[in-house]
């Protein structure tokens, strides 16, 4: 097998057993790797699809793709797929760094972990050898300390690990990957915590076999040339980081402010990428085989800290009415140290502040008073007092307070820092995303805001369903190959097919290539339907349908019904969002029909 390693490893933490499996080649051909392989393997290995996410039987699936660990630019990524404790959907998150190549180096395309260790454990894998090591000494250690410990102890290994929030099963806990990359969303860190798995370290010296080495090298050189020719991927992302989007979002009126009550923030420039770069000494960092180097480090009095990404600035800054860049950097740093998703953390605190503002809560936190937030983050991570309620996520918290309408989420995943009222395709993207409100399932920002490849009317609902589907399918492929979405800024879509063919030696007709994305998307949808999600869950909070935004968003609301009906139809689904039999046949998914149309005992 070329491109893939051809086998996966399944580890059971309960009895410390391991098994290696060879997968049929067609499974790779039909689902590629990463996200696609993750959802396929979840069906393959899970007896009970409705497994409670924090139950020992839930499965963690770390997966690489056929391009991982090759010379292809940005091929260092890996995914983690599981059932999310935050959303209850199938959920994959992917991160850069160097872990993916190390997993392949150990000889596996994917690593599956189930069960629960009796005590806090770290897992050490050197090719076929696994060690289960008690690590009570790492209990509640923040991520920075944990990283230092692991790096010093095992310098030849690549590591991922959780902070206190994961150990305490906070519903939006993260998994840290390497020194400064993160599996950020969906609370996947809590699933590691529920298994008493503090850290996972892996190494090996194996390499995937490449079908056409010369062609792969040529494609690499051509890709690097294009990435270098684009001012964005060659220098601007390195110079300003993703925070360069702050001023654009603000001017365009899509910057969440005060829990999305407003969409422009007067002091936005003060917390922009331009300002952070100008006022602080900072440096950049990159992942495996990546020329873009978008990660930012900021020098502070207390040492170097990760520069906040755009999303973190949006949710921890304007959405809480915070304009002090030092404060945002500090909150971002504390979230990283505790292992909290900055988006969901900002969202649940904004919800708390709005509850206070409206007199629905007697807590002192408000948009006008930011004292005590650092301590509140710790209370969330350790589930103390008010923190225990906040740790359940914004919708559960808002329900507890009697005002679910003030949680800014879809399927309990908090809405990122692009207001849907100002990008109607993005709005439909949040509504239909299989993992809840997410901006990474489809690159609608590129199309509706950045004008890539050409500008369209961002306020119109017309034609957005078909554009969105194309983007969702393409991004499902990128998440499965796996390459970084930032390459889309410089590379044409045909590149990815060329890369896949050169590495694997397989041929994919253009239509078949896109079907890969649709197949992955539909299998995720089948999972969500099987565990009970329905059309009623495909909706935004009332705020976005009834209240206008600021500036250019005056008079703008999201009208969902027509867009959603178009979307279901173009997907080949019925009016309730169930894939039609003919759709399942076209996508070679008929084996999964019983999960949604009955006939199989899966407790659904």
């Amino acid at each position, binding site marked *: 097998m070329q491109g893939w390693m051809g086998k996966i490893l399944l580890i059971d933490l309960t009895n410390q057993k391991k098994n290696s499996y060879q997968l049929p080649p067609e499974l790779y051909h039909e689902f590629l790797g990463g996200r696609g392989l993750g959802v396929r393997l979840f069906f393959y290995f899970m007896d009970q699809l409705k497994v409670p996410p924090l139950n020992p039987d839930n499965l963690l699936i770390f997966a690489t793709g056929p391009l991982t660990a090759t010379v292809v630019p940005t091929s260092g990524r890996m995914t983690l797929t599981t059932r999310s404790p935050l959303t209850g959907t199938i959920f994959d998150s992917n991160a850069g760094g160097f872990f993916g190549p190390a997993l392949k180096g150990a000889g596996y395309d994917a690593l599956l972990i189930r069960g629960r260790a009796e005590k806090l454990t770290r897992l050490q894998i050197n090719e076929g050898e696994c060690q289960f090591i008690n690590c009570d000494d790492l209990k509640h250690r923040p991520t920075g300390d944990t990283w230092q410990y692991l790096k010093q102890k095992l310098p030849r290994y690549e590591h991922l690990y959780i902070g206190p929030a994961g150990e305490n099963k906070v519903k939006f806990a993260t998994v840290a990957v390497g020194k400064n990359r993160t599996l950020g969303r969906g609370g996947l860190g809590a699933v590691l915590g529920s298994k008493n798995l503090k850290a996972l370290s892996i190494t090996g010296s194996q390499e995937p076999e490449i079908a056409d080495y010369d062609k792969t090298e040529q494609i690499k050189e051509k890709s690097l040339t294009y990435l270098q020719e684009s001012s964005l991927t060659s220098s*601007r992302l390195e110079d*300003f980081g993703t925070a*360069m989007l702050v001023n654009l979002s603000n*001017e365009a009126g899509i910057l969440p402010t005060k829990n999305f009550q407003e969409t422009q923030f007067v002091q936005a420039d003060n917390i922009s990428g331009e300002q952070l770069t100008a006022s602080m000494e900072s440096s950049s960092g990159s992942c495996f085989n990546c020329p873009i180097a978008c990660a930012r480090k900021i020098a502070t009095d207390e040492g170097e800290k990760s520069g906040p990404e*755009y999303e973190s600035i949006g949710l921890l800054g304007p959405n809480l009415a915070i304009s002090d860049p030092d404060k945002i950097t500090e909150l971002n740093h504390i979230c990283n140290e505790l292992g909290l998703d900055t988006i969901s953390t900002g969202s649940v605190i904004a919800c708390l502040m709005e509850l206070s503002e409206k007199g629905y809560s007697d807590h002192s936190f408000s948009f006008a008073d930011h004292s005590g937030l650092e301590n509140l983050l710790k209370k969330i991570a350790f589930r103390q007092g008010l923190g225990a309620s906040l740790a359940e996520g914004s919708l559960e918290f808002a329900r507890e307070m009697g005002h679910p309408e003030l949680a800014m989420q879809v399927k309990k995943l908090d809405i990122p820092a692009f207001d849907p009222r100002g990008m109607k395709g993005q709005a439909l993207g949040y509504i239909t995303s299989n993992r809840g409100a997410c901006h990474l399932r489809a*690159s609608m920002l590129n199309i509706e805001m*950045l004008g890539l490849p050409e500008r369209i009317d961002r306020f119109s609902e017309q034609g957005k369903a078909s554009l969105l589907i194309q983007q969702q399918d393409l991004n499902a492929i990128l998440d499965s190959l796996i390459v970084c979405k*930032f390459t889309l800024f410089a590379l044409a879509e045909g590149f990815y097919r060329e890369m896949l063919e050169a590495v694997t030696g397989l041929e994919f007709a253009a239509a078949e290539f896109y079907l890969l994305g649709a197949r992955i998307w539909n299998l995720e949808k089948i999972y969500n339907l099987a565990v009970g999600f329905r059309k009623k869950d495909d909706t935004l909070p009332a705020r976005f349908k009834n209240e206008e935004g600021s500036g250019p968003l005056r008079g703008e609301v999201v009208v969902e019904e027509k867009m959603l009906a178009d979307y279901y139809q173009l997907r080949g689904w019925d009016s309730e969002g169930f894939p039609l039999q003919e759709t399942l046949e076209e996508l070679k998914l008929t084996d999964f029909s019983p999960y949604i149309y009955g006939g199989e005992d899966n407790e659904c």
Partner: protein
Amino acid sequence: MSAEIIVNLYGGLEKYSLEGKRKDNRIKASKVNNIEEVLQHFSIPPDEANIILLDGHHVDLSDSVKAGNVISIFPLIGGG
């Protein structure tokens, strides 16, 4: 209404500001008729002005401008 147009030069384009300012550059409205002339005023090559917003709305080079407008100009940017 102010007789001026306000221009914001983001994403590194502040290097074209006559005063080295990112925000709140001002031009007398009588000096320019459209976006293209705004770019010429600052000597910004059109291919460096990738996204242009007028009061938050995307516009083209030929779109006209008037006193009180806020124009924000960005190079090719991205992220998210």
